[in-house]
């Protein structure tokens, strides 16, 4: 197909990212300041700089301005202004993304939703909560606790991350093995398009007519519309929950044990793995009593009625023992259960205690290949001369290798990125994907070219264009343009041919 023919079936900005330079900055700022309260528009670099990155500090970009609206009307007004002046908009929640999803655009506005943080309604009978996007994940569970309910998806950053960000990234968490990802726990989303139009997606009823757009908006990374209201499903707190803490003297045995638990027909409420370096980093903060001499720890939780939990815990113990666990403990009470988990939840930041910087990966592989992946990572540590801590949502094969590096040491970041890239490509090779729950953002956009074909990427762009034809929402994220793929050199090369000879090289 010639370039001309391609242009006919592929969206206009599929080939290359749009250039948003040269917009009328003065007009933008004066219009924004008219619709925002005092102090809600940050313009000077001094004020805007702390917004230049989210949880992924390796990628930074100073925005043109930061807007801090406190109502849906203000959000709508901001979007209309940006649309009329052709200015990009990057939505941001708590800024805890690990894939740079909220990294600003140099010619764009950061739209912070942190001030939209009210729980609008909580219906204990229908077991739903209607909340604004800036409500913290954990705050929903805290509000629901009085009714014996909670919001099930629990990303490790749940203390801080917002529900709007969770929907945008389709976040998972320790318990999504049994209770599902964000998409399985969100009933309805209200969002504003770049044109300022309100969309109602999904419904509070179990099913809605038409296409299931809720599945599309969850994980859309701020590319389709800006979320302003979410109705989440609340889950009854289980009567009992206990967690098994199993120690292994070999990471490979631990990986095999994970596959064996699932093969035995058990779906634990959560099944997590931490290797020795990760365990040693968190123990001084959480004092969970983790065995520090173990090469790997597995945490497997069972919840339900006391009888169910007793029976399931017994079976989990048996499988762990049969797969070479060197020590097995079961949480004796709720405090100990929470302590066992607290180390896992704090694992990423706690790595800050042993390394100034880390690069967190998010690949997913079939469970049965966990052990193989761990062995491969150990080899890559040698190849790149960098350490790697492994923290996995083992139950669903979601890997979070944390590559340790020192951003102050020349070349280490680049080595870390290459190391990470190689892990992700191995994930695809093993039959998995490049992201489990953190989203693609800016971080994994290059690997998207390995995961998907040109036709598939074009389809993604067409979906994006249906919502946001001019590509103003979070441009340059999640779905790569074709020239970016060529730049990264990561489109599959078949039979020695140069891919896309029609595209200019950089």
């Amino acid at each position: 197909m010639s370039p001309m023919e391609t242009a006919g079936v592929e969206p206009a900005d599929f080939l290359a990212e749009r250039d948003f330079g040269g917009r009328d900055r003065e007009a933008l700022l004066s219009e924004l300041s008219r619709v925002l309260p005092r102090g809600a528009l940050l313009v000077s670099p001094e004020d805007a700089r702390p917004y230049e990155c989210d949880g992924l500090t390796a990628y930074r970009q100073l925005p043109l301005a930061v807007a801090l609206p406190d109502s849906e009307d203000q959000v709508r007004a901001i979007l209309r202004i940006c649309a009329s002046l052709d200015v990009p908009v990057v939505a941001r929640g708590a800024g805890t993304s690990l894939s740079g999803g909220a990294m600003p655009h140099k010619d764009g506005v950061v739209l912070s939703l942190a001030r939209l943080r009210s729980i609008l309604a909580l219906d204990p009978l229908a077991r739903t909560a209607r909340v604004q996007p800036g409500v913290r994940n954990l705050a929903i569970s805290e509000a629901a606790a009085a009714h014996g309910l909670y919001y099930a998806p629990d990303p490790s950053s749940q203390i801080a991350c917002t529900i709007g960000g969770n929907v945008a990234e389709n976040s998972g968490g320790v318990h999504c093995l049994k209770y599902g990802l964000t998409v399985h726990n969100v009933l309805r989303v209200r969002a504003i398009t770049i044109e300022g139009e309100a969309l109602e997606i999904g419904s509070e009823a179990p099913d809605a007519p038409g296409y299931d757009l809720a599945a599309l908006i969850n994980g859309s990374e701020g590319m389709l519309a800006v979320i302003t209201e979410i109705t989440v499903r609340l889950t009854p707190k289980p009567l009992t929950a206990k967690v098994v803490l199993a120690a292994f003297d070999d990471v490979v045995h631990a990986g095999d044990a994970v596959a064996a638990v699932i093969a035995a027909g058990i779906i634990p409420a959560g099944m997590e793995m931490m290797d020795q370096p990760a365990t040693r980093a968190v123990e001084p903060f959480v004092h969970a009593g983790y065995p520090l001499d173990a090469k790997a720890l597995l945490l497997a939780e069972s919840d339900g009625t006391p009888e169910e939990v007793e029976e399931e815990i017994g079976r989990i113990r048996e499988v762990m023992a049969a797969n070479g666990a060197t020590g097995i403990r079961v949480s004796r009470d709720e405090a100990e259960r929470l302590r066992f988990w607290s180390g896992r939840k704090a694992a990423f930041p706690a790595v800050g205690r042993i390394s100034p910087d880390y690069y967190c990966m998010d690949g997913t592989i079939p469970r049965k290949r966990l052990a193989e992946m761990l062995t491969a990572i150990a080899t890559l540590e040698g190849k790149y001369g960098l350490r790697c801590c492994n923290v996995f949502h083992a139950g669903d094969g979601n890997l979070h290798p944390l590559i340790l590096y020192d951003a102050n040491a020349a070349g280490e970041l680049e080595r870390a990125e290459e190391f990470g890239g190689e892990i992700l490509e191995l994930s695809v090779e093993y039959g998995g994907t490049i992201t489990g729950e953190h989203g693609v953002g800016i971080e994994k956009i290059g690997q998207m070219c390995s995961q998907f074909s040109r036709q598939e990427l074009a389809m993604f762009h067409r979906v994006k264009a249906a919502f946001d034809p001019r590509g103003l929402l979070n441009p340059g994220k999640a779905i790569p343009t074709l020239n970016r793929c060529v730049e990264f050199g990561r489109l599959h090369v078949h039979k020695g041919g140069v891919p896309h000879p029609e595209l200019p090289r950089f």
Partner: protein
Amino acid sequence: MQTNLADFIRDTPEGREADGILRKCVHCGFCTATCPTYQLLGDELDGPRGRIYLIKEMLEGVAVSGRTRLHLDRCLTCRSCETTCPSGVQYARLVDIGRAVVDRLRPRPAADRLRRALLKESLPRPALFGAALALGQAFRPILPGALAAQVPRTSGRGTWPQPRHARRMIVPAGCVQPALAPDINAAAARVLDRLGISLIEVPRAGCCGALRFHLGDQEGGRRDARTMIDAWWPYLSQGVEAIVMTASGCGAFVREYDHLLERDSRYAEKAKRIASLVRDVSEVVAAGEARLAECAQRSKPAPLRLAFHSPCSLQHGQKLRGVVEPLLVATGCELTPVADAHLCCGSAGTYSILQPEIAGRLREAKLAALGAGAPEAIATANIGCLAHLQAGTATRVRHWIEVIDERLD
């Protein structure tokens, strides 16, 4: 986090300390969740992670305006973020460095300087503060409502038991506390006397240094600390086993004298020794909890529904969480549930005076949380919180040691 400190600070002791702290921060943002000002204002710049970023930029040589200072001023230094931080970032130390640097690079406007100077020269002087307070109380009937609410009421002082035990500890007289609540130290002495410890009050020697230090006069704060050390030092050779603090705000500061004076060759060693002997009164009472429960059983006190407000300086600054509450329960108090107990009440030293709007909103939220269980009284552990909360509620606010004192025979 990557750092590249500028020449003006890189090789100074402050620069090295700041660099070490910054490098531990991984920018995860967990701290924003428990930061009172971020939760209130919803701006990255008013949370710990944003402030760390502002400080980092400044130390890397980027020009700063009064905006950076504004956001550092809005920080309560409650240290809730330190409790939350899994990476072990010593935020309070970094913000101290940041504040000193911003004051140097961008001196405050004259009016702001004057206000701070007045506070730091009046509050730490017991005689002056006492006289001003008496004046305010005398004129309360004719003061406008808002101002009248700022003038706290005081109570009298009860008896101080004669020193009769072999075990002895000292308690500093304090600066603001004796004028506002003179019975707190005496109540501590009476409780400890029952536990077999004689508490000796060290005559007024001024402020521990926290006030001046946190008002931007770090050198003045160090001077105060040296005066304190000189006042307490002679007691150590007389077999005094601990320095008991009845105001957790002061305790949190004195506990870090070793860090404060580590570069002072004359005082470094002494400061280390003093810091190691500091105990919050709750730690001392907790060590005698069994005895306390016995005393309470004998006196059979009437039931009391109480809401406990743990000051930030106690739970975050001194990391003493869950120490006071069981003591209150042991003396028959029923503690009402308090939501968001980790959040600051807005007092925060002179913060309530310098940032009245934020402090007022935080107090409102705190009093609502404390009042949720309809308590008969509120107990706390720091004179600052006590006075600040009392100014916003008709429910009586007291130091927990006074509550316990009354409940023993």
